[in-house]
């Protein structure tokens, strides 16, 4: 599912995940799993930031006619 998300959406998701650590819902027992998820997503975002290219496509349409 993560693969279907755009880079911006992944960053938004990470922000939400990190927000939990500052919230009243924070529990140490759950923190390990949450931390694991956040690290995994952070690494995925870092990889995207390093590797993701734009697709540039010149339309095969003659706009002069």
């Amino acid at each position, binding site marked *: 599912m993560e693969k279907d998300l755009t880079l911006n959406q992944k960053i938004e998701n990470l922000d939400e995940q990190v927000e939990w650590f500052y919230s009243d819902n924070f529990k140490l027992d759950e923190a390990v799993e949450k931390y694991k998820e*956040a690290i995994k997503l952070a690494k995925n975002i870092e990889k*995207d*930031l390093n590797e993701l290219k*734009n697709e540039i496509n010149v339309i095969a349409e003659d706009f*002069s006619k």
Partner: protein
Amino acid sequence: MNSYSPTEFIAVVNQTLEYAYSPALVTGEVASFKINQGKWVFFDIKDEESSISCFMSVWSLRVPLEDGMKVVVSGVPKLTKWGKFSFTVENVKPVGEGSIKKAYELLKKKLTAEGLFDVSRKREIPENLVKLGVISSTDAAGYTDFIKIINARWGGMKVSVAHTQVQGMDAPDQIIRALKYFNERSDVQMIAILRGGGSADDLSCFNDEQLVREIAASKIPVITGIGHERDESLADLAADVRASTPSNVAEMLTKDRNEEKMKLMKTMNRTNQVLLQAVERASENNTGRVKRVCDGINTKYIEPMIKNNAEKIDDCLKVIKDAFDKVQNILQQRIKVLDVLNPEKVLSQGYAILSGKISPGEMIKITTAKQEIDATIKNIKER
């Protein structure tokens, strides 16, 4: 020698003119400008010595004209059925700084009155922009700058490019067709119209009335990056967002991946701190639980990640591992203290625990390392 009727002769002359001068470009000053029945435009185009009668439809008139403006007209010379010479204009464009400025001001006033440039019409750049339409000449330096900058700054975008002219008489119609294409046949979230710097004449196509109306009517938000900071076209005013240059469009539409990487590191560092503080807080109250959490984090996540993962986030993880190790050392010291005080260890050294009411005749329980003994107190003496 051929003999013609007047109709035949006019037809032959028009054929010859069309063959020889189609289309012809004539540059001169507008005189006797008028619009008849709201449909037909008549004016003369003249220089110091001569004057040509021009005719065109209102629909073909894309810029406001006034007597005294210098223009270039493209069209076909013709003899009318009354034998008078006329120039049928297909396109007219102001030339020279003064005339371009005059036409600009006239059209700006008209379209402002219609509300085409109202701030309330403006839409923002979509938050999660992935599909972008670009209208530009792929040969232009401005386009090359734009592509270079978006590729350096960001990734994962699908950019569809409509290659059009971005100066000259044909440019407005080509850009209009590209706008229609994106609006009718694509799923782009935003359209960028790009054109690098140039003279007032080069950029004057972006003051074309039909183009400006098409931009304002676009269902898809439009951003323009035309010319330089100081240049302001009517296309800019009609667009939802105006950038100063094509490079500026790239900067407005994309984040900087290096800045995002820095933010990412800061975010994870902050999260590590929050987690560490929580662990340290808990360690003061709940030794066993914290030890389990520390062990769990270290063995399941931190150590495997440090073994396998890349440098930058590893730096983060090393920080958290060091901190966890520190917490664990404290815990180990506490465990040693507890171990020394462990009642079982004391019993193994030959001591016993008495429990019950210490009073003559009372039953008490004596616990040794290996036995539990019930006994009765016979006598009590102070030491």
